[in-house]
Protein backbone atom coordinates (compact mmCIF):
# COMPACT_ATOMS: atom_id res chain seq x y z
CA UNK A 1 0.00 0.00 0.00
CA UNK A 2 0.98 3.59 -0.02
CA UNK A 3 2.23 3.21 3.54
CA UNK A 4 4.87 0.72 2.42
CA UNK A 5 6.28 2.93 -0.23
CA UNK A 6 6.64 5.94 2.02
CA UNK A 7 10.27 6.92 2.59
CA UNK A 8 9.97 6.36 6.34
CA UNK A 9 8.61 2.84 6.03
CA UNK A 10 11.19 1.91 3.42
CA UNK A 11 14.11 2.93 5.60
CA UNK A 12 12.51 1.15 8.59
CA UNK A 13 12.23 -2.06 6.58
CA UNK A 14 15.81 -1.82 5.41
CA UNK A 15 16.93 -1.19 8.99
CA UNK A 16 15.06 -4.27 10.19
CA UNK A 17 16.50 -6.39 7.41
CA UNK A 18 20.00 -5.36 8.34
CA UNK A 19 19.38 -6.03 12.01
CA UNK A 20 17.87 -9.46 11.30
CA UNK A 21 20.77 -10.37 9.02
CA UNK A 22 23.26 -9.29 11.63
CA UNK A 23 21.47 -11.20 14.37
CA UNK A 24 21.00 -14.40 12.38
CA UNK A 25 24.19 -15.03 10.55
CA UNK A 26 27.01 -12.63 11.20
CA UNK A 27 29.49 -12.18 13.94
CA UNK A 28 28.25 -12.13 17.51
CA UNK A 29 30.19 -8.93 17.85
CA UNK A 30 27.69 -7.17 15.63
CA UNK A 31 24.76 -8.53 17.65
CA UNK A 32 26.38 -7.40 20.88
CA UNK A 33 26.78 -3.99 19.35
CA UNK A 34 23.02 -3.84 19.24
CA UNK A 35 22.55 -4.77 22.90
CA UNK A 36 25.93 -4.43 24.57
CA UNK A 37 26.51 -6.76 27.51
CA UNK A 38 28.90 -5.73 30.25
CA UNK A 39 32.29 -7.43 30.00
CA UNK A 40 32.76 -9.89 32.92
CA UNK A 41 36.51 -9.19 32.69
CA UNK A 42 35.53 -5.81 34.07
CA UNK A 43 32.40 -6.43 36.14
CA UNK A 44 33.59 -9.52 38.02
CA UNK A 45 36.38 -9.38 40.57
CA UNK A 46 39.07 -11.88 39.53
CA UNK A 47 41.17 -13.87 42.02
CA UNK A 48 44.22 -11.77 41.35
CA UNK A 49 42.37 -8.65 42.45
CA UNK A 50 40.90 -10.26 45.58
CA UNK A 51 43.69 -12.42 47.01
CA UNK A 52 47.32 -11.87 47.83
CA UNK A 53 49.84 -12.96 45.29
CA UNK A 54 53.22 -14.55 46.04
CA UNK A 55 55.59 -12.30 47.99
CA UNK A 56 59.08 -11.23 47.14
CA UNK A 57 61.61 -14.06 46.92
CA UNK A 58 58.90 -16.44 45.74
CA UNK A 59 61.09 -16.79 42.67
CA UNK A 60 64.69 -15.70 43.44
CA UNK A 61 65.39 -16.10 39.73
CA UNK A 62 62.20 -15.20 37.91
CA UNK A 63 60.68 -16.82 34.85
CA UNK A 64 58.05 -15.71 32.33
CA UNK A 65 54.32 -15.75 33.12
CA UNK A 66 52.70 -19.18 32.93
CA UNK A 67 50.53 -17.74 30.17
CA UNK A 68 53.66 -17.41 28.02
CA UNK A 69 54.85 -20.98 28.46
CA UNK A 70 54.26 -21.84 24.79
CA UNK A 71 56.95 -19.33 23.81
CA UNK A 72 59.94 -21.66 23.90
CA UNK A 73 62.85 -22.93 21.86
CA UNK A 74 61.76 -25.77 19.59
CA UNK A 75 63.66 -28.37 17.64
CA UNK A 76 62.91 -30.38 14.51
CA UNK A 77 63.76 -33.94 15.38
CA UNK A 78 64.25 -35.25 11.87
CA UNK A 79 66.98 -32.73 11.09
CA UNK A 80 69.81 -34.52 12.88
CA UNK A 81 70.82 -38.00 14.06
CA UNK A 82 71.23 -37.06 17.72
CA UNK A 83 70.09 -34.38 20.12
CA UNK A 84 73.67 -33.76 21.28
CA UNK A 85 74.86 -32.71 17.86
CA UNK A 86 71.85 -30.73 16.86
CA UNK A 87 70.11 -27.39 16.82
CA UNK A 88 66.98 -25.74 18.13
CA UNK A 89 65.27 -22.52 17.19
CA UNK A 90 64.61 -19.11 18.75
CA UNK A 91 60.86 -18.24 18.80
CA UNK A 92 61.35 -15.15 16.65
CA UNK A 93 57.61 -14.96 15.86
CA UNK A 94 56.82 -14.08 19.49
CA UNK A 95 59.61 -11.60 20.21
CA UNK A 96 59.85 -7.85 19.76
CA UNK A 97 62.70 -5.38 19.99
CA UNK A 98 66.19 -6.59 19.22
CA UNK A 99 67.48 -8.35 22.35
CA UNK A 100 66.87 -12.09 22.53
CA UNK A 101 66.05 -13.25 26.07
CA UNK A 102 68.94 -15.47 27.19
CA UNK A 103 66.70 -18.48 27.89
CA UNK A 104 65.25 -18.36 24.37
CA UNK A 105 68.53 -18.07 22.46
CA UNK A 106 68.79 -20.98 20.01
CA UNK A 107 71.32 -23.68 20.78
CA UNK A 108 73.73 -25.47 18.49
CA UNK A 109 76.01 -28.05 20.06
CA UNK A 110 78.22 -30.70 18.54
CA UNK A 111 78.55 -32.85 21.66
CA UNK A 112 75.91 -31.51 23.98
CA UNK A 113 76.23 -28.81 26.64
CA UNK A 114 79.54 -28.96 28.50
CA UNK A 115 78.97 -28.23 32.20
CA UNK A 116 82.21 -26.44 32.93
CA UNK A 117 83.29 -25.49 36.46
CA UNK A 118 84.58 -21.92 36.10
CA UNK A 119 87.10 -22.47 38.90
CA UNK A 120 88.66 -25.23 36.79
CA UNK A 121 88.41 -23.44 33.47
CA UNK A 122 91.60 -22.21 31.84
CA UNK A 123 92.30 -20.27 28.67
CA UNK A 124 95.62 -20.97 26.99
CA UNK A 125 97.32 -18.87 24.29
CA UNK A 126 100.28 -20.48 22.57
CA UNK A 127 101.92 -21.09 19.22
CA UNK A 128 103.63 -18.21 17.41
CA UNK A 129 103.66 -15.90 20.42
CA UNK A 130 106.46 -14.35 22.46
CA UNK A 131 105.09 -15.79 25.67
CA UNK A 132 102.57 -18.67 25.88
CA UNK A 133 100.08 -17.83 28.61
CA UNK A 134 97.43 -19.45 30.79
CA UNK A 135 94.58 -17.47 32.30
CA UNK A 136 92.01 -18.27 34.94
CA UNK A 137 88.55 -16.70 34.74
CA UNK A 138 89.60 -14.42 37.60
CA UNK A 139 92.63 -13.24 35.61
CA UNK A 140 90.45 -12.40 32.63
CA UNK A 141 87.97 -10.40 34.65
CA UNK A 142 90.76 -8.25 36.11
CA UNK A 143 92.00 -7.08 32.70
CA UNK A 144 91.72 -3.38 31.91
CA UNK A 145 89.78 -2.39 28.83
CA UNK A 146 86.63 -4.45 29.40
CA UNK A 147 83.88 -3.89 26.79
CA UNK A 148 80.22 -4.69 26.15
CA UNK A 149 78.58 -4.95 22.72
CA UNK A 150 75.38 -6.21 21.09
CA UNK A 151 75.90 -8.58 18.17
CA UNK A 152 73.79 -11.06 16.24
CA UNK A 153 74.94 -14.65 16.10
CA UNK A 154 73.47 -16.49 13.13
CA UNK A 155 74.13 -20.15 12.42
CA UNK A 156 75.59 -20.60 8.93
CA UNK A 157 72.79 -23.15 8.33
CA UNK A 158 69.96 -20.76 9.24
CA UNK A 159 67.29 -21.17 6.51
CA UNK A 160 69.38 -24.05 5.11
CA UNK A 161 66.34 -26.33 4.88
CA UNK A 162 64.71 -23.84 2.49
CA UNK A 163 67.21 -24.07 -0.39
CA UNK A 164 65.00 -26.36 -2.47
CA UNK A 165 61.74 -24.65 -1.67
CA UNK A 166 59.38 -23.83 1.18
CA UNK A 167 59.76 -26.54 3.83
CA UNK A 168 58.96 -25.40 7.34
CA UNK A 169 55.96 -23.42 8.47
CA UNK A 170 57.09 -20.69 10.81
CA UNK A 171 59.86 -18.12 11.04
CA UNK A 172 61.03 -19.86 14.22
CA UNK A 173 62.00 -22.81 12.00
CA UNK A 174 63.02 -20.99 8.84
CA UNK A 175 64.96 -18.15 10.52
CA UNK A 176 65.32 -19.01 14.22
CA UNK A 177 68.97 -20.13 14.27
CA UNK A 178 69.84 -16.63 15.38
CA UNK A 179 70.05 -14.60 18.54
CA UNK A 180 71.09 -11.08 19.38
CA UNK A 181 72.40 -10.31 22.85
CA UNK A 182 74.77 -8.03 24.69
CA UNK A 183 78.18 -9.56 25.34
CA UNK A 184 80.53 -8.53 28.11
CA UNK A 185 84.17 -9.35 28.04
CA UNK A 186 87.44 -8.26 26.51
CA UNK A 187 88.71 -7.46 23.05
CA UNK A 188 90.58 -10.56 21.90
CA UNK A 189 93.38 -8.18 20.92
CA UNK A 190 94.03 -7.43 24.60
CA UNK A 191 94.97 -11.06 25.26
CA UNK A 192 96.89 -11.49 22.00
CA UNK A 193 98.92 -8.38 22.82
CA UNK A 194 99.62 -9.77 26.26
CA UNK A 195 101.07 -12.94 24.69
CA UNK A 196 102.78 -10.99 21.89
CA UNK A 197 101.86 -12.37 18.44
CA UNK A 198 104.94 -13.00 16.29
CA UNK A 199 105.00 -11.39 12.81
CA UNK A 200 104.44 -14.79 11.14
CA UNK A 201 101.30 -15.36 13.22
CA UNK A 202 98.59 -14.84 10.59
CA UNK A 203 96.00 -17.34 11.83
CA UNK A 204 94.36 -18.22 15.08
CA UNK A 205 92.89 -21.58 16.03
CA UNK A 206 90.12 -21.37 18.63
CA UNK A 207 89.15 -24.54 20.50
CA UNK A 208 86.35 -25.39 22.93
CA UNK A 209 86.50 -27.47 26.09
CA UNK A 210 83.48 -29.62 25.17
CA UNK A 211 83.83 -33.18 23.94
CA UNK A 212 83.61 -32.01 20.33
CA UNK A 213 86.66 -29.84 21.10
CA UNK A 214 85.23 -27.54 18.44
CA UNK A 215 87.88 -25.78 16.39
CA UNK A 216 87.97 -23.09 13.73
CA UNK A 217 90.76 -21.18 12.01
CA UNK A 218 90.32 -17.42 12.17
CA UNK A 219 92.47 -14.94 10.24
CA UNK A 220 94.55 -12.79 12.60
CA UNK A 221 93.24 -9.62 10.95
CA UNK A 222 89.71 -10.39 12.14
CA UNK A 223 90.91 -11.58 15.55
CA UNK A 224 92.62 -8.24 16.16
CA UNK A 225 89.86 -6.14 14.61
CA UNK A 226 86.73 -6.80 16.65
CA UNK A 227 86.64 -10.33 18.10
CA UNK A 228 85.85 -10.64 21.79
CA UNK A 229 86.18 -13.18 24.49
CA UNK A 230 82.94 -12.96 26.45
CA UNK A 231 81.97 -14.32 29.83
CA UNK A 232 78.66 -12.49 30.01
CA UNK A 233 75.48 -12.05 28.01
CA UNK A 234 72.54 -9.72 28.65
CA UNK A 235 74.00 -8.52 31.93
CA UNK A 236 74.80 -11.85 33.58
CA UNK A 237 77.07 -14.84 33.07
CA UNK A 238 76.80 -16.77 29.80
CA UNK A 239 74.24 -19.57 29.88
CA UNK A 240 75.81 -23.06 29.90
CA UNK A 241 74.32 -23.73 26.47
CA UNK A 242 75.98 -20.55 25.19
CA UNK A 243 79.46 -21.50 26.35
CA UNK A 244 79.68 -20.78 30.09
CA UNK A 245 82.08 -19.66 31.36
CA UNK A 246 83.79 -18.28 28.22
CA UNK A 247 83.06 -18.00 24.52
CA UNK A 248 84.49 -16.40 21.43
CA UNK A 249 82.53 -13.57 19.77
CA UNK A 250 83.22 -13.13 16.05
CA UNK A 251 80.97 -10.20 15.02
CA UNK A 252 79.14 -10.56 11.71
CA UNK A 253 80.62 -13.99 10.97
CA UNK A 254 78.95 -17.41 10.88
CA UNK A 255 77.92 -18.75 14.27
CA UNK A 256 80.07 -21.88 14.05
CA UNK A 257 83.18 -19.75 14.59
CA UNK A 258 81.92 -18.38 17.90
CA UNK A 259 83.64 -21.21 19.79
CA UNK A 260 81.93 -21.94 23.11
CA UNK A 261 83.58 -23.14 26.31
CA UNK A 262 86.69 -21.51 24.81
CA UNK A 263 89.85 -22.96 26.31
CA UNK A 264 92.62 -22.63 23.75
CA UNK A 265 93.90 -20.13 21.20
CA UNK A 266 96.83 -21.17 19.06
CA UNK A 267 98.64 -18.73 16.78
CA UNK A 268 99.92 -20.16 13.50
CA UNK A 269 101.04 -19.18 10.03
CA UNK A 270 98.42 -21.18 8.08
CA UNK A 271 94.80 -22.29 8.55
CA UNK A 272 94.35 -25.71 10.15
CA UNK A 273 91.65 -27.05 7.75
CA UNK A 274 89.63 -28.50 10.57
CA UNK A 275 86.54 -30.64 10.08
CA UNK A 276 84.30 -27.59 10.66
CA UNK A 277 85.95 -25.70 7.79
CA UNK A 278 86.33 -28.53 5.27
CA UNK A 279 83.64 -31.20 5.64
CA UNK A 280 81.23 -28.68 7.19
CA UNK A 281 80.81 -24.94 6.65
CA UNK A 282 82.01 -25.17 3.07
CA UNK A 283 79.40 -24.32 0.46
CA UNK A 284 78.97 -26.79 -2.40
CA UNK A 285 78.02 -25.11 -5.67
CA UNK A 286 76.30 -26.55 -8.72
CA UNK A 287 79.53 -27.43 -10.56
CA UNK A 288 80.67 -29.72 -7.72
CA UNK A 289 83.25 -27.32 -6.36
CA UNK A 290 82.84 -25.61 -3.01
CA UNK A 291 83.50 -22.24 -1.48
CA UNK A 292 85.54 -22.32 1.69
CA UNK A 293 86.03 -19.68 4.38
CA UNK A 294 82.62 -18.10 3.71
CA UNK A 295 82.77 -16.32 7.03
CA UNK A 296 80.53 -13.26 6.60
CA UNK A 297 76.77 -13.52 7.09
CA UNK A 298 75.18 -11.34 4.40
CA UNK A 299 72.29 -8.90 4.90
CA UNK A 300 69.05 -10.68 5.72
CA UNK A 301 65.62 -9.98 7.15
CA UNK A 302 62.36 -11.69 7.96
CA UNK A 303 58.86 -10.55 8.84
CA UNK A 304 58.19 -12.15 12.22
CA UNK A 305 54.55 -11.07 12.40
CA UNK A 306 52.40 -11.91 10.60
CA UNK A 307 54.00 -15.30 10.01
CA UNK A 308 52.70 -18.89 10.11
CA UNK A 309 52.94 -19.01 13.93
CA UNK A 310 51.60 -15.45 14.30
CA UNK A 311 48.63 -15.12 11.91
CA UNK A 312 46.53 -11.98 11.48
CA UNK A 313 43.30 -12.13 13.50
CA UNK A 314 41.47 -8.90 12.75
CA UNK A 315 40.87 -6.61 9.82
CA UNK A 316 41.66 -2.95 10.25
CA UNK A 317 44.77 -1.52 11.86
CA UNK A 318 47.63 -4.03 12.04
CA UNK A 319 51.38 -3.97 12.52
CA UNK A 320 53.82 -5.80 10.30
CA UNK A 321 57.09 -6.26 12.13
CA UNK A 322 60.33 -8.08 11.69
CA UNK A 323 64.07 -8.11 12.16
CA UNK A 324 67.04 -7.48 9.88
CA UNK A 325 70.79 -7.85 10.25
CA UNK A 326 74.00 -7.81 8.24
CA UNK A 327 77.48 -9.13 8.84
CA UNK A 328 78.88 -6.33 6.72
CA UNK A 329 77.86 -3.43 8.94
CA UNK A 330 74.93 -1.29 9.93
CA UNK A 331 71.48 -1.71 8.44
CA UNK A 332 70.61 1.09 6.05
CA UNK A 333 67.00 0.39 5.14
CA UNK A 334 64.34 -2.31 5.10
CA UNK A 335 61.58 -2.39 2.48
CA UNK A 336 58.35 -4.36 2.83
CA UNK A 337 55.97 -5.53 0.10
CA UNK A 338 52.40 -6.77 0.52
CA UNK A 339 51.95 -7.86 -3.10
CA UNK A 340 54.82 -10.29 -3.61
CA UNK A 341 57.40 -7.72 -4.66
CA UNK A 342 55.44 -5.66 -7.17
CA UNK A 343 55.52 -2.61 -4.92
CA UNK A 344 57.63 -1.84 -1.88
CA UNK A 345 57.32 0.53 1.07
CA UNK A 346 60.24 1.49 3.28
CA UNK A 347 59.60 0.30 6.82
CA UNK A 348 60.11 2.30 10.00
CA UNK A 349 63.16 1.36 12.09
CA UNK A 350 62.86 1.78 15.82
CA UNK A 351 65.26 1.07 18.64
CA UNK A 352 69.02 0.74 18.28
CA UNK A 353 70.54 0.36 14.83
CA UNK A 354 74.00 -0.89 15.74
CA UNK A 355 76.50 -2.40 13.31
CA UNK A 356 76.49 -6.22 13.19
CA UNK A 357 73.44 -6.31 15.44
CA UNK A 358 69.76 -6.98 14.84
CA UNK A 359 67.46 -4.13 13.87
CA UNK A 360 63.70 -4.04 14.45
CA UNK A 361 61.38 -2.71 11.74
CA UNK A 362 57.67 -1.91 11.68
CA UNK A 363 55.11 -1.15 9.00
CA UNK A 364 51.73 0.00 10.27
CA UNK A 365 48.90 -0.75 7.84
CA UNK A 366 45.17 -1.23 7.46
CA UNK A 367 44.19 -4.72 6.37
CA UNK A 368 41.00 -4.94 4.34
CA UNK A 369 41.01 -8.75 4.45
CA UNK A 370 42.58 -9.30 1.06
CA UNK A 371 45.14 -12.03 0.43
CA UNK A 372 48.71 -10.76 0.69
CA UNK A 373 52.20 -11.95 -0.22
CA UNK A 374 54.43 -10.30 2.38
CA UNK A 375 58.20 -9.98 2.04
CA UNK A 376 60.93 -7.87 3.57
CA UNK A 377 64.16 -6.79 1.86
CA UNK A 378 67.16 -5.57 3.83
CA UNK A 379 69.82 -3.19 2.60
CA UNK A 380 73.02 -2.61 4.56
CA UNK A 381 75.38 0.33 4.62
CA UNK A 382 77.64 -1.22 1.96
CA UNK A 383 74.71 -1.08 -0.49
CA UNK A 384 74.23 -4.85 -0.44
CA UNK A 385 70.56 -5.63 -1.04
CA UNK A 386 69.10 -8.90 0.25
CA UNK A 387 68.57 -11.07 -2.86
CA UNK A 388 65.63 -13.30 -3.72
CA UNK A 389 66.08 -17.04 -3.26
CA UNK A 390 65.94 -17.43 -7.02
CA UNK A 391 68.79 -14.94 -7.50
CA UNK A 392 70.86 -16.92 -4.98
CA UNK A 393 70.08 -20.26 -6.64
CA UNK A 394 71.18 -18.89 -10.01
CA UNK A 395 74.68 -18.37 -8.59
CA UNK A 396 74.88 -21.23 -6.12
CA UNK A 397 72.49 -24.02 -7.07
CA UNK A 398 70.58 -25.77 -4.28
CA UNK A 399 73.21 -27.86 -2.48
CA UNK A 400 75.21 -25.25 -0.60
CA UNK A 401 73.31 -25.80 2.70
CA UNK A 402 74.74 -22.67 4.34
CA UNK A 403 74.32 -18.91 3.89
CA UNK A 404 70.74 -18.79 2.61
CA UNK A 405 69.81 -15.13 3.05
CA UNK A 406 67.11 -15.11 0.37
CA UNK A 407 63.94 -13.05 0.73
CA UNK A 408 61.18 -14.91 2.62
CA UNK A 409 57.56 -14.84 1.44
CA UNK A 410 54.53 -15.26 3.67
CA UNK A 411 51.14 -15.86 2.06
CA UNK A 412 48.46 -14.26 4.26
CA UNK A 413 45.05 -15.70 3.40
CA UNK A 414 41.82 -13.73 3.69
CA UNK A 415 41.12 -15.48 7.01
CA UNK A 416 44.49 -14.29 8.35
CA UNK A 417 46.12 -17.74 8.24
CA UNK A 418 49.71 -17.37 7.10
CA UNK A 419 51.88 -19.80 5.17
CA UNK A 420 55.49 -20.22 4.03
CA UNK A 421 55.50 -20.13 0.22
CA UNK A 422 57.75 -19.48 -2.71
CA UNK A 423 56.55 -17.24 -5.51
CA UNK A 424 57.50 -16.40 -9.05
Amino acid at each position, binding site marked *: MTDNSSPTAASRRSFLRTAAFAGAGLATGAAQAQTPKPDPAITEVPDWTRYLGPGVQNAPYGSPSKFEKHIVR*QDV*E*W*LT*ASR*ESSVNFTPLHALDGVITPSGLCFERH*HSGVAEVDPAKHRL*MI*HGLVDKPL*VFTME*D*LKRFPGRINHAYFLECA*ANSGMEWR*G*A*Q*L*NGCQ*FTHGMIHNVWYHGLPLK*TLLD*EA*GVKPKGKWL*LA*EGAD*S*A*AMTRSIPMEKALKDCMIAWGMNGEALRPEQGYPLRLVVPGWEGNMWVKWL*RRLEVGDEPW*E*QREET*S*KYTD*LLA*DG*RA*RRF*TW*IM*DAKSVVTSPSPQAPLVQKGPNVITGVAWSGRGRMQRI*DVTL*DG*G*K*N*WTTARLDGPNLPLSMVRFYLDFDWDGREMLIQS*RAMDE*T*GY*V*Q*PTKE*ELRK*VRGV*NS*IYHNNGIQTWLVRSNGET*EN*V*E*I*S
Partner: protein
Amino acid sequence: MSRFRNSLISGLMLGTLLVFAGGALQAEPAKKPIGLGRVALPEEIAAWDIDIRPDGQGLPPGKGSVKEGEEVFLNQCAACHGEFGEGAGRWPVLVGGRGTLDKDNPDKTIGSYWPFASTTFDYIRRAMPFGNAQSLTADETYALTAFLLNMNDIVKDDFVLSRENFSSLKMPNVGGFYDDDRETTEKAFWKKNPCMKDCKPEVSVLNRARVIDVTPDSKTGPKVE
Protein backbone atom coordinates in the same frame (compact mmCIF):
# COMPACT_ATOMS: atom_id res chain seq x y z
CA MET B 1 121.40 9.09 56.00
CA SER B 2 122.07 6.22 53.66
CA ARG B 3 118.34 5.72 53.40
CA PHE B 4 118.02 9.33 52.35
CA ARG B 5 120.74 8.96 49.79
CA ASN B 6 119.24 5.80 48.39
CA SER B 7 115.86 7.36 47.95
CA LEU B 8 117.49 10.41 46.39
CA ILE B 9 119.34 8.22 43.93
CA SER B 10 116.28 6.20 43.05
CA GLY B 11 114.38 9.44 42.69
CA LEU B 12 116.97 10.72 40.26
CA MET B 13 117.01 7.45 38.37
CA LEU B 14 113.22 7.41 38.17
CA GLY B 15 113.33 10.91 36.76
CA THR B 16 115.78 9.85 34.09
CA LEU B 17 113.70 6.78 33.26
CA LEU B 18 110.57 8.88 32.95
CA VAL B 19 112.30 11.21 30.52
CA PHE B 20 113.32 8.24 28.40
CA ALA B 21 109.88 6.67 28.66
CA GLY B 22 108.31 9.94 27.57
CA GLY B 23 110.54 10.02 24.51
CA ALA B 24 109.74 6.42 23.69
CA LEU B 25 106.04 7.05 24.08
CA GLN B 26 106.17 9.69 21.38
CA ALA B 27 108.06 7.44 18.99
CA GLU B 28 105.74 4.42 19.32
CA PRO B 29 103.10 3.44 21.90
CA ALA B 30 104.78 1.37 24.59
CA LYS B 31 103.40 -2.17 24.80
CA LYS B 32 103.60 -2.74 28.49
CA PRO B 33 102.24 -6.13 29.46
CA ILE B 34 99.42 -6.04 31.98
CA GLY B 35 101.05 -8.95 33.76
CA LEU B 36 97.93 -11.05 34.23
CA GLY B 37 98.01 -14.79 33.63
CA ARG B 38 101.15 -16.89 33.80
CA VAL B 39 103.46 -18.63 31.38
CA ALA B 40 102.05 -21.89 29.97
CA LEU B 41 104.33 -24.85 30.74
CA PRO B 42 105.48 -27.14 27.91
CA GLU B 43 103.64 -30.10 29.51
CA GLU B 44 100.41 -28.08 29.58
CA ILE B 45 100.73 -27.05 25.95
CA ALA B 46 101.49 -30.65 24.98
CA ALA B 47 98.39 -31.87 26.84
CA TRP B 48 96.03 -29.56 24.96
CA ASP B 49 97.72 -28.99 21.61
CA ILE B 50 96.09 -31.80 19.61
CA ASP B 51 95.48 -30.11 16.28
CA ILE B 52 96.99 -31.37 13.04
CA ARG B 53 97.50 -29.39 9.88
CA PRO B 54 97.52 -30.59 6.24
CA ASP B 55 101.34 -30.31 6.22
CA GLY B 56 101.48 -32.84 9.08
CA GLN B 57 102.31 -30.33 11.80
CA GLY B 58 101.06 -31.73 15.09
CA LEU B 59 101.10 -35.43 14.17
CA PRO B 60 102.16 -37.63 17.09
CA PRO B 61 104.63 -40.51 16.69
CA GLY B 62 102.94 -43.79 15.81
CA LYS B 63 101.54 -45.96 13.03
CA GLY B 64 98.62 -48.17 12.16
CA SER B 65 97.60 -50.52 9.35
CA VAL B 66 94.37 -50.83 7.39
CA LYS B 67 93.83 -54.24 8.98
CA GLU B 68 94.29 -52.94 12.52
CA GLY B 69 92.01 -50.06 11.67
CA GLU B 70 89.25 -52.40 10.53
CA GLU B 71 89.25 -54.10 13.92
CA VAL B 72 89.05 -50.79 15.83
CA PHE B 73 86.35 -49.58 13.45
CA LEU B 74 84.17 -52.66 13.92
CA ASN B 75 84.50 -52.41 17.71
CA GLN B 76 84.19 -48.68 18.21
CA CYS B 77 82.64 -47.05 15.13
CA ALA B 78 80.47 -49.42 13.10
CA ALA B 79 77.44 -49.18 15.41
CA CYS B 80 76.84 -45.67 14.12
CA HIS B 81 78.78 -45.48 10.85
CA GLY B 82 77.96 -48.98 9.56
CA GLU B 83 80.40 -51.86 8.97
CA PHE B 84 81.42 -50.35 5.63
CA GLY B 85 81.22 -46.69 6.65
CA GLU B 86 77.86 -46.46 4.92
CA GLY B 87 76.18 -44.87 7.98
CA ALA B 88 73.53 -46.53 10.15
CA GLY B 89 70.19 -44.74 10.21
CA ARG B 90 70.82 -41.01 10.01
CA TRP B 91 74.44 -41.20 11.24
CA PRO B 92 77.11 -39.81 8.91
CA VAL B 93 78.24 -41.74 5.83
CA LEU B 94 82.05 -41.92 5.68
CA VAL B 95 82.63 -43.87 2.49
CA GLY B 96 81.69 -43.60 -1.18
CA GLY B 97 79.99 -40.82 -3.09
CA ARG B 98 82.80 -40.19 -5.60
CA GLY B 99 81.52 -38.31 -8.62
CA THR B 100 78.30 -37.14 -6.98
CA LEU B 101 79.28 -33.59 -6.00
CA ASP B 102 77.68 -31.98 -9.04
CA LYS B 103 74.63 -34.26 -8.92
CA ASP B 104 71.21 -33.53 -7.54
CA ASN B 105 71.88 -35.35 -4.25
CA PRO B 106 75.60 -35.15 -3.59
CA ASP B 107 77.14 -37.64 -1.18
CA LYS B 108 79.83 -35.72 0.73
CA THR B 109 82.12 -38.27 2.40
CA ILE B 110 85.79 -38.42 3.42
CA GLY B 111 86.58 -39.94 0.04
CA SER B 112 84.36 -37.83 -2.16
CA TYR B 113 84.63 -34.42 -0.48
CA TRP B 114 87.24 -33.97 2.25
CA PRO B 115 90.31 -32.12 0.92
CA PHE B 116 92.88 -33.31 3.46
CA ALA B 117 93.64 -36.59 5.22
CA SER B 118 94.93 -34.63 8.22
CA THR B 119 91.36 -33.60 9.02
CA THR B 120 90.35 -37.24 9.37
CA PHE B 121 93.11 -37.94 11.88
CA ASP B 122 92.54 -34.66 13.73
CA TYR B 123 88.78 -35.04 14.00
CA ILE B 124 88.84 -38.70 15.08
CA ARG B 125 91.39 -37.87 17.73
CA ARG B 126 89.58 -34.82 19.10
CA ALA B 127 85.93 -35.83 18.92
CA MET B 128 85.38 -39.53 18.19
CA PRO B 129 83.93 -41.94 19.20
CA PHE B 130 80.89 -39.71 19.74
CA GLY B 131 80.33 -39.77 23.51
CA ASN B 132 83.80 -41.12 24.33
CA ALA B 133 86.11 -38.56 22.77
CA GLN B 134 89.90 -38.49 23.18
CA SER B 135 89.97 -42.15 24.24
CA LEU B 136 91.87 -43.57 21.26
CA THR B 137 95.64 -44.01 21.18
CA ALA B 138 97.77 -42.44 18.47
CA ASP B 139 98.31 -45.88 16.88
CA GLU B 140 94.56 -46.59 16.87
CA THR B 141 93.93 -43.22 15.24
CA TYR B 142 96.55 -43.89 12.55
CA ALA B 143 94.97 -47.30 11.97
CA LEU B 144 91.43 -45.90 11.74
CA THR B 145 92.57 -43.21 9.32
CA ALA B 146 94.30 -45.86 7.18
CA PHE B 147 91.15 -48.01 7.22
CA LEU B 148 88.87 -45.15 6.20
CA LEU B 149 91.23 -44.12 3.39
CA ASN B 150 91.29 -47.75 2.24
CA MET B 151 87.50 -48.01 2.29
CA ASN B 152 87.48 -44.88 0.14
CA ASP B 153 89.93 -46.48 -2.37
CA ILE B 154 92.67 -43.98 -1.54
CA VAL B 155 95.23 -46.47 -0.13
CA LYS B 156 95.76 -50.21 -0.69
CA ASP B 157 94.76 -53.04 1.67
CA ASP B 158 98.29 -53.53 3.00
CA PHE B 159 98.89 -49.84 3.72
CA VAL B 160 100.43 -48.78 7.02
CA LEU B 161 99.99 -45.11 7.91
CA SER B 162 102.57 -43.29 10.05
CA ARG B 163 103.75 -39.80 10.79
CA GLU B 164 106.54 -40.37 8.27
CA ASN B 165 104.39 -41.19 5.23
CA PHE B 166 101.38 -39.01 6.10
CA SER B 167 102.37 -36.18 3.76
CA SER B 168 102.37 -38.60 0.78
CA LEU B 169 98.57 -38.90 1.01
CA LYS B 170 96.55 -36.99 -1.54
CA MET B 171 92.79 -36.74 -1.30
CA PRO B 172 90.70 -36.92 -4.50
CA ASN B 173 88.89 -33.63 -3.86
CA VAL B 174 91.86 -31.56 -2.69
CA GLY B 175 91.34 -29.18 -5.64
CA GLY B 176 87.62 -28.86 -5.06
CA PHE B 177 87.64 -25.77 -2.86
CA TYR B 178 88.25 -22.09 -3.41
CA ASP B 179 88.15 -19.04 -1.16
CA ASP B 180 84.96 -17.07 -0.64
CA ASP B 181 84.38 -15.04 -3.81
CA ARG B 182 80.96 -13.58 -3.08
CA GLU B 183 82.11 -10.00 -3.53
CA THR B 184 83.02 -10.83 -7.13
CA THR B 185 80.55 -13.50 -8.23
CA GLU B 186 77.62 -11.93 -6.39
CA LYS B 187 78.48 -8.35 -7.19
CA ALA B 188 75.02 -7.89 -8.70
CA PHE B 189 73.56 -8.03 -5.18
CA TRP B 190 75.03 -4.61 -4.46
CA LYS B 191 72.34 -2.43 -6.04
CA LYS B 192 72.11 1.32 -5.80
CA ASN B 193 68.37 1.66 -6.20
CA PRO B 194 66.36 -1.54 -5.90
CA CYS B 195 62.97 -1.39 -7.64
CA MET B 196 60.19 0.11 -5.48
CA LYS B 197 57.16 0.43 -7.82
CA ASP B 198 55.57 -1.80 -10.47
CA CYS B 199 58.54 -4.20 -10.22
CA LYS B 200 56.87 -7.18 -11.88
CA PRO B 201 53.60 -7.88 -13.67
CA GLU B 202 52.24 -11.10 -12.16
CA VAL B 203 53.05 -13.09 -9.06
CA SER B 204 52.08 -16.72 -8.54
CA VAL B 205 52.72 -19.20 -5.75
CA LEU B 206 55.24 -21.85 -6.83
CA ASN B 207 55.38 -24.03 -3.75
CA ARG B 208 54.06 -24.22 -0.23
CA ALA B 209 55.54 -25.58 3.00
CA ARG B 210 52.14 -26.95 3.94
CA VAL B 211 52.23 -29.43 1.07
CA ILE B 212 55.46 -30.94 2.37
CA ASP B 213 54.15 -30.86 5.95
CA VAL B 214 57.30 -31.57 7.94
CA THR B 215 56.89 -28.92 10.66
CA PRO B 216 58.20 -30.00 13.13
CA ASP B 217 57.38 -33.59 14.16
CA SER B 218 57.49 -35.53 10.91
CA LYS B 219 60.15 -38.20 10.60
CA THR B 220 60.66 -37.60 6.91
CA GLY B 221 62.25 -34.61 5.34
CA PRO B 222 65.49 -33.15 4.11
CA LYS B 223 68.69 -33.82 5.97
CA VAL B 224 70.62 -30.89 7.33
CA GLU B 225 74.22 -31.05 8.48
